[in-house]
């Protein structure tokens, strides 16, 4: 049986906790500085609504407009994503986007095109990743979670497009919005940090010929969806039925 003194103590403790809670809530709404409140600071770290599965981001590349010597898209990608390290062996450098020159030896016909992660609907890299670091967002963008990538490179073996790179050396001077890391695998993100702000990927914005078109493949009113519906486009290694987010014209 409890002593009367204990009951009094418990009551006063409850009162104190209640008062403190009210005071705390009040303090939370107090302005720390004009326009900034504690509640807002807390909300700043809460996740946003996230990617929507109603959207399927895609890219259409018109190779007839893509000039052989031009690498504006490659440079823009490197600047935007902080790919600035020097490597002794160029085979060990990261290439999120690269220019490929194609030649048909029988006809002599030549093409030039940018090659990047194709953001497959059924990405083999996501299937094979042992930790789930390789993942596909609801809006179709394929990413690597740098926090749980163990650098096993199985995704590189599985990718039909040589779109992934292992970071072979320590990195410095990174773009805070695009974290990269030694020993992790990385690839084109469709500049997700820009797309989430309503901007275009850096490569698309930089193309002097307007050969790259970015948009929502699921939106029938978007230019990309309309062109993909009307014009002949190609999926690289279409035989694999991966339903790529990147389509090419003119090859």
């Amino acid at each position, binding site marked *: 049986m409890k002593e009367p003194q204990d009951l009094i103590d418990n009551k006063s403790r409850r009162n104190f906790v209640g008062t403190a809670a009210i005071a705390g809530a009040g303090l939370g709404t107090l302005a720390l500085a004009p326009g900034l409140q504690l509640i807002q600071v807390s909300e700043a770290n809460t996740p946003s609504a996230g990617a929507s599965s109603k959207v399927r981001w895609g890219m259409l590349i018109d190779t007839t407009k893509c000039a052989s010597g031009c690498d504006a898209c*490659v440079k823009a990608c490197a600047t935007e994503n902080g790919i600035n390290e020097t*490597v*002794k*062996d*160029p*085979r*060990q*450098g*990261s*290439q999120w986007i*690269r*220019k*490929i*020159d*194609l*030649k*048909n*030896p*029988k006809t002599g016909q030549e093409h030039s095109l940018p*090659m990047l992660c194709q953001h497959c609907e059924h990405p*083999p890299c*996501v*299937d*094979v*990743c*042992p*930790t*789930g*670091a390789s993942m596909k967002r609801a809006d179709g963008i394929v990413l690597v979670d740098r926090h*749980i*990538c*163990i*650098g*096993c*490179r*199985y995704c*590189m*073996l*599985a*990718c*039909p*497009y*040589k779109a*992934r*790179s*292992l*970071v*072979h*050396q*320590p990195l410095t001077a990174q773009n805070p919005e695009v974290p990269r*890391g*030694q*020993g*992790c*695998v990385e690839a084109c993100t469709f500049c997700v940090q820009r797309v989430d702000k309503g901007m275009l990927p850096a490569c698309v914005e930089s193309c002097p010929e307007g050969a790259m078109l970015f948009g929502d493949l699921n939106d029938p009113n978007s230019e990309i969806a309309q062109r993909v519906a009307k014009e002949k486009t190609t999926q*690289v*290694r279409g035989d*694999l039925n991966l339903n790529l987010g990147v389509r090419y014209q003119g*090859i």
Partner: protein
Amino acid sequence: MQTEMSKQSGQSFYGMAAIGGLISLLGVAGAFYMEHHGHQVSGMNNQTFWGLPHVFAIFLIVAASGVLNVASIGTVFGKKVYKPRGPLSGLLAITFLAAGLFVIMLDLGRADRLIIAMTHVNWTSVFGWNMVLYPVFFGLVGLYVWLLMERRMYAYAKTAGVAAFIWRLVMTTGTGSIFGFVVARQAYNSAVIAPMFIIMSFAWGLAAFLIFQRLMFGCNNTELHPQVRERLNNLLGTFIAAVFYFVVVYHLTNIYFAKQTGFEQFILLNGGIFPKLFWGGYLVLGTIIPMLLLYLPSFQRIQGAGIIASVLTIIGGLCFLYVFIIGGQAYPLDMFPGMELKSTFFDGHIDNYVPSTPEILLSIGGFGVAFTLTLIVTRVLPFVPQDDVAKLQASGALHD
């Protein structure tokens, strides 16, 4: 005959342990150097990203499963000649798997994230399955070895042996499927790879077993009974022939697929080091010479013919894996069939991978770990097979 490594051969034990330990430590040093400086100090790159460590690691993991075969033949299939070899077979299965994982884990880009690999599992990944396949293999084989060695529990050994036998088949199916399910590359994407890996595990595992058995008998100044030796050698020859059959089928399948003839030409005819390693390493050294040593009477008379055949089988296996793993990456991806490719990322180019010293140290270190662990355990516990040949002969079990 002693059942542990001979106590009289103390000096040779410490000598061998020191050599094995040193090789293992050099492996750790190589891995630490790569971990610290990044994979830029390796010969690996963004085209050949699985290098020599993967060749050795996969060899050890496949052989780990196969070396258990010796115990399985005794326990599961009731062949009495194999029964005394069960504990050593189980021990080697455990130490080889541990050594294979030692190499592959230390080669990770982020070797410090081992816990993440164990706690974040993607079940669509064959690598993800390994998070279950390997620990269960350790557990099952450990239990099996204990049941074999603890006479009061021997009645349960067969049940554990059957479970371990089935599990090792599943595990090697998984190892083969790491490549078999890769649709992107000409070298892989074939249903025949998983069974081919299983039969390779039989040959490589038995070869490793015979070498360790010889070593232990040698330390005890004793010899394997000729009839037992002949039987084990016969089995090795059968496995080598079966591997050859699967390798032929694998290449014929690729040659038959029109899309893959370019790759087969590369690997078998004009791919520089790869055809040399395939024909010279795998076929001549690793298949034909061992078969001659095991079956041709004039070769059989050579001192230690079976052991030479075993060593050559292992060398042949490593050569095959080098061609299979490195050659499969060196050959460029065929993204645009019929077109010539040129890029800053070496599209369309054959990669010239050369392993660096840290990689070589880590790879050899795997063998050092397997050897040292086995040596230490066999020093303190009774793992040396004891044959009662007279009893086997009397019961007719020597040839059953």
